[in-house]
């Protein structure tokens, strides 16, 4: 599904990622944990195609394609999704209109007919029920005035709607209270399948209580310093990032 080989990334002259390698197979859930400033968010943003970061070395292959050569929208249409740590507010753009455009852009690349307003509404309401979201969300502007938790749910809704092959969740648990976290985790768990992979990027172990990863990696100072099974997350919670085994 995804193969990152010795990836080095700068912001300006400053190296942020200093040789990251990671392989994610279909159906696997990987978690990347690390302290603030370790490069976690940089990795998410680079994979999604943000132009502020310069890849100086290494390669990323996604579903057999050279990911780094693709524009952000190509990556998305090819099945990569980034749930933002800070979803962007877009005043004046109706959430339904936005979600429908995103879905139809994807359907178009899959050679499926576009959904009309009525069919779309039926579908989105099903997905919202899954996430226990109020239908009032549909009338509002994209993320505008949403609470932190509402923004994260809106991201989870997009995963449920767009059904990506690989979903990267950047600090999805931040801003969520425990009830909302459970709901979001349930919706993600419901989407787990042998064909779909997840990359959970998180500072805390809390999210991993609800979405159980197959593999846990520790990112420190731009490099993966440890990899292991789900138990590694619990050990980190005990010992902290400063005192590895």
């Amino acid at each position, binding site marked *: 599904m995804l193969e990152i080989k010795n990836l080095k990334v700068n912001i300006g002259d400053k190296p942020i990622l200093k040789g990251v390698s990671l392989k994610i197979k279909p159906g696997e859930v990987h978690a990347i944990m690390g302290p603030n400033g370790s490069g976690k968010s940089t990795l998410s943003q680079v994979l*999604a*195609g*943000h*132009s502020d970061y310069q890849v100086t070395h290494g390669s990323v292959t996604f579903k057999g394609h050279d990911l780094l050569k693709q*524009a*952000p*929208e190509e*990556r*998305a*249409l090819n099945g990569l*999704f*980034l749930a*933002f740590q800070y*979803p*962007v*507010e*877009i*005043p*004046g*753009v109706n959430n339904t209109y*936005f979600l429908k*455009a*995103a879905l139809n*852009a*994807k359907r178009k*690349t899959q050679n499926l007919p576009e959904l009309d307003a009525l069919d779309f509404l039926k579908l989105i309401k099903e997905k919202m029920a899954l996430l226990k979201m109020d239908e009032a969300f549909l009338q509002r*502007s994209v993320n505008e005035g949403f609470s932190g938790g509402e923004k994260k749910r809106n991201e989870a809704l*997009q995963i449920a709607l*767009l059904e990506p092959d690989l979903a990267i969740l950047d600090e999805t648990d931040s801003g969520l209270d425990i009830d909302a976290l459970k709901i979001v985790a349930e919706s993600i768990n419901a989407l787990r399948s042998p064909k779909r992979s997840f990359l959970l990027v998180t500072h805390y172990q809390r999210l991993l209580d609800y979405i159980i990863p197959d593999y846990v990696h520790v990112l420190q100072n731009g490099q993966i310093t440890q990899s292991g099974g789900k138990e590694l997350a619990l050990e980190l919670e005990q010992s902290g990032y400063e005192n590895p085994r």
Partner: protein
Amino acid sequence: MKIRVKEGEILRGRGEGQYELEANSHLELTQITFADTNLSQTFEIVFLGEGASCNLSFLDLAKNSGHLESIIHVKHQVPNCKSVLVHKGLYNDAAQGTFKAMVEVAPHALDTDASQLHRSLLLSPTAKVHAEPHLQIQADAVKCKHGVSIGQLDDKALFYLKTRGLDEPTARRFLIQGFAKEILDHIPDVESRAQLEQQVFAWI
């Protein structure tokens, strides 16, 4: 053109002119102007009677080498009136926009509540805008504010939309429509609003 809004009446207006507001009247002025050559328009609002109010909503769209100038003059001559002015501009190519607003509060126009806000987006590196908001306040006990913000399409929002599979032109169109919506929403008639939305869309 002189337009009189009679006592207690509500007028939905558009177009250049001098609007005179009698007591307890209300003016809802929504003006959407497209320009690809040079164009200057002037609006004057004069409060003649107490308790009157107006909402002035402008959307200026200029492209090519057009220069679109909007001059808006609001005269608070009597107490207890309220004016809300929102002017938005979208300037593309080598177009220029000028926004000149003057809100005047006369010495005896107490309890005036006046605001003016200008926001514009420069859609190309060669587009320009001159914003000149003026407040001339000669009375005490009034509430007046003004604000200007000029910028470009939000890079973060563009990136967010692209990561959802929308291409650059679609993402830009979304943001531009979102920007225009605040003004278009002032048009109550669904059909004419949809028509203007189409025009804005086509203009982009």
